[in-house]
């Protein structure tokens, strides 16, 4: 009898302790929950082409991004965030739909390109049933506005889906100086409503030059090489790299270009700071959830080429993600996360209602459980690029630091151990056959799950993005 009593007592103690522990946790959460921002406004800032390695908060030795750093000091900084593609058109759409590029199908500028028929890819035509994050906000009673640098996120691709107002820069590749003014006008008009805003800048991008010219403020050595900088030169180097597969530039040439890149990042960051000050003045900061993301990085010679889109190395898919709520404090999250996780995270944090269509669509998973420490391991990141039909690459980056890249047109396989080779320079495909095999099978499971025709992925050709000359198929 006594034994039974003791047994029951022990069980009671256990249950009670568990209960108390949980209650304590719940109580803390409900008081000032940094992960909840119900009825908050939401602003997604898109820092186009911002390479993670050039963000000071992420370890860059130069002070390029003081504004983003200060956001990170007051919020969640994801140090290992992976974009689903390496160029704008497919990548931002993965943020806004929580789908892989091959699923939302916005994988190239043209959905058709033959002599008889040229059609710009538009989400409304190629994937009419796909719901965007803006639509979810709209359905939840928010006013929605998008202000962009045009080009890859322009309304012509259907990026305006779900937005009440969508203003693209009058000229392609606009920086914050073209997107912030209409955004502030709109804010002034709508500040008394709950709003969702997408604020985008091409200020870091290779096709953007500062209107006032370069000051070369980050150039810390005497550069005597042939390069001058600027978007024409950048385009030339990009095309040379694509044609030859490599560039014959010196380390100094690349350093020179990095200095210009840093300057653009720094200027854009400063402009973002100005915008946030305006937000303060409008007294909106305390009821606004701010999410800063980038769609892809920029290559400046890491693999002997220029620009982006054509590969899936880390300089192109490792991006910054910062999430700040009025109640959040500094927290760094080192687990690997993905662009597709952002949409469900925002939905959860803002407490939005979603229907089955959205729930079934979303391929990512909310990061809230990671942000509150309940989820300890990172997530497998699948990325894709079908850039200009020049290449078809798919990659898998594992939470424990391996990357497998498959190039379909030539059945090329690459395996990198990012823990020991973050620059992805030593292909271990023959050294680690078992790892390579396992990751290849996982990668192909994604190909299968996303319903792709691998035969089509073998065909390359030309689908222009920047006005390249291509001969359309008959």
């Amino acid at each position, binding site marked *: 009898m006594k034994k039974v009593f003791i047994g029951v007592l*022990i069980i009671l103690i256990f249950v009670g302790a568990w209960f108390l522990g949980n209650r304590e946790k719940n109580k803390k959460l409900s008081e000032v929950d940094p992960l909840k921002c119900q009825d908050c406004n939401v602003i997604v800032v898109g820092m186009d082409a911002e390479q993670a390695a050039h963000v000071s908060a992420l370890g860059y030795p130069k002070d390029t991004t003081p504004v983003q750093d200060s956001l990170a000091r007051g919020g969640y900084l994801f140090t290992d965030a992976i974009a689903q593609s390496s160029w704008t058109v497919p990548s931002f759409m993965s943020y806004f739909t929580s789908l892989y590029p091959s699923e939302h199908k916005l994988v190239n500028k043209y959905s058709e390109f033959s002599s008889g028929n040229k059609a710009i890819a538009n989400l409304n035509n190629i994937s009419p049933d796909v719901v965007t994050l803006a639509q979810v906000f709209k359905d939840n009673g928010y006013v929605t506005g998008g202000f962009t640098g045009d080009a890859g996120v322009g309304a012509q691709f259907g990026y305006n889906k779900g937005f009440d107002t969508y203003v693209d820069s009058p000229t392609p590749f606009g920086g914050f100086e073209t997107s912030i003014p209409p955004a502030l006008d709109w804010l002034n008009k709508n500040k008394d409503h709950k709003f969702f805003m997408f604020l985008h800048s091409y200020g870091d991008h290779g096709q953007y030059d500062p209107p006032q010219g370069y000051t070369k403020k980050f150039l810390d050595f005497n550069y005597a090489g042939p390069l001058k900088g600027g978007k024409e030169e950048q385009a030339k180097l990009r095309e040379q790299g694509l044609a030859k597969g490599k560039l014959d530039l010196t380390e100094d040439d690349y350093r020179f270009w990095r200095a210009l890149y840093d300057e653009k990042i720094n200027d854009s960051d400063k402009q973002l700071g100005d915008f946030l000050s305006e937000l303060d003045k409008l007294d909106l900061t305390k009821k606004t959830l701010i999410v800063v993301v980038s769609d892809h990085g920029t290559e400046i010679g890491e693999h002997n080429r220029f620009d982006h889109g054509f590969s899936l190395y880390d300089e192109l898919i490792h991006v910054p993600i910062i999430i700040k709520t009025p109640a959040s404090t500094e927290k760094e999250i080192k687990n690997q996360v993905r662009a597709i996780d952002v949409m469900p995270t925002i939905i959860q944090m803002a407490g939005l209602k979603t229907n089955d269509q959205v729930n079934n669509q979303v391929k990512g998973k909310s990061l809230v459980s990671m942000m509150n420490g309940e989820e300890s391991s990172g997530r497998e990141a699948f990325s894709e690029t079908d850039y200009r039909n020049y290449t078809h690459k798919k990659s898998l980056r594992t939470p424990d630091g391996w990357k497998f890249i498959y190039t379909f047109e030539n059945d090329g396989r690459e395996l990198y151990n990012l823990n020991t080779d973050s620059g992805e320079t030593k292909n271990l495909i023959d050294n680690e056959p078992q790892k390579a095999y396992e990751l290849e099978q996982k990668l192909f499971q994604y190909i299968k799950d996303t319903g792709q025709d691998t035969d089509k992925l073998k065909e390359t050709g030309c689908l222009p993005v920047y006005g390249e000359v291509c001969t359309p198929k008959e």
Partner: protein
Amino acid sequence: MFKRKFWFFFLVAILLAAGGIYFHEKRNLSVISGGGKKPNVIIISVDSLRSDHVGVCGYQRQTTPNIDKLAKEGVMFKNYITQSYITPVSEMSMLTSTYPSASALVAMDTVSSEGILTIAQILQKYGYRTGAFGNSPEYKSYPAMEKSFSRGFDEYSVGMRREILPEQQKIFNFASEKSDKPFFLWIPLGSAHYPYGKFAENFSDPNYNGPLKSQNLDWFNGIIPWIYKNTLYQTDSGQITAKIPLSQADIQYVIDKYDGDIFGTDAWVGGLLDKLKEEGLDKNTIIVLQSEHGEDLNEHNYIHHYDIFDTMTRTPLIIKNPNSIRNNLILDDQTQSINVLPTILDYLDIPSPHQAVGVSLKPLIENNEKVSANDYIFIERTPLWEKTAFGGPAPRDDLSQVKEFLDRAKGRITAFYTQEDLDFITSPNSIHNRDVAVRTPGWKLIYRASKDFQEKYSWWNILSGEHPAVSEFELYDLKTDPTEQHNVIDRYPDIASQLEEKLIDFYNKTKLRDEPEIKKPIYDYF
């Protein structure tokens, strides 16, 4: 008092330990299964073994006492359907879980695609020691076959003579080598394949005195190509000099010899399995025994593997995993060559390669879960036999045998074919001719995509001088007509059209896309 305290702490300790183990297990389930040395794997392929000539599958003769014993220790699938009807083509489907057109190994001179991995290549990646020991000469004598099949093997030892079985000591030495690595053995045995009469004569009638007595029961330098519709054709310089009628007793004489060769092969298998047991090498070893094609024994007027009827594509499959929950089972469920690789990898906890189109049989073996993916089994008839007989590269040795056949056949062939025809059939283009079939447990529909080719080039037409029309579609009711004698397509149009839809879809999806690598014929007769 002390006692009570003791019990209290004891209970608390147990509770904590139990909780700890529970949560630990829950978190690490997937990790735990990765540890330890993986089981060894042996695949024994017995060439030309029909399912209905295996004792445990119901044959009235005790042809296979040792295979029967293995079946009792494992699971026997008596309705195992091979993906094709010619040794290497069918075997590659088994080793890669792909259809022939997908692997590109569709003839004796085509090399399989480099991107298609065999189980040997996969297991090698996982640290297995891999060895091939066999005596199916195709894997050695045709350069394209040797290149395709030797991939992934540390040791590749395939003999050229069907009557000389592999040296068992060599296999034991390989298997019992002191090593942290598990082993994989592929043992392709060509000894049940014609020429018949290589081994035991215990089923033969000693008093037989018919026209086949003492004849060489082989293709190239024997009489196999000259038996058709119960007639033995005799020729001289390509001219038919005599047509000798054959009786049921003559055919039975061939069957007896075939059974004898099965018995001889089975005895060798028994010796191997016993020795493995003696050495304790069977304890952590998955053993698969299968045959990649059968043999028509006059059901379709020839003694040969020539088509994709059940006589030639229904063979035994045994899977023995010493750790299986169920054994000593004979299952009627349809299975197929493309199931083998996923099943083995499933047992080894290794992911299947993305090329694999078959599913694992493990759920069926362990839990009796029906495998709906096997409801419709597709078979490719590639290459057409004539391509192999007249157009393909001849084996590397014994060219005299091939020459002998072609010398005998030449008059018939050239009388039949124009030079243009000969050029075509000997060119790589003829690899694109094939037929396909879909099989359900009750029905088989064959699409004769090669109808024109067959009508024109069929060896049996050349031999007999007959020109029967070939139907584009053939439907067989396997329940009432297991040997597929009567095309009942007109009687069951609904069944035919339902199967036709699936079959045409399969046919269109499996087209050989790229020109495969061709290893040039070594011997070019015409």
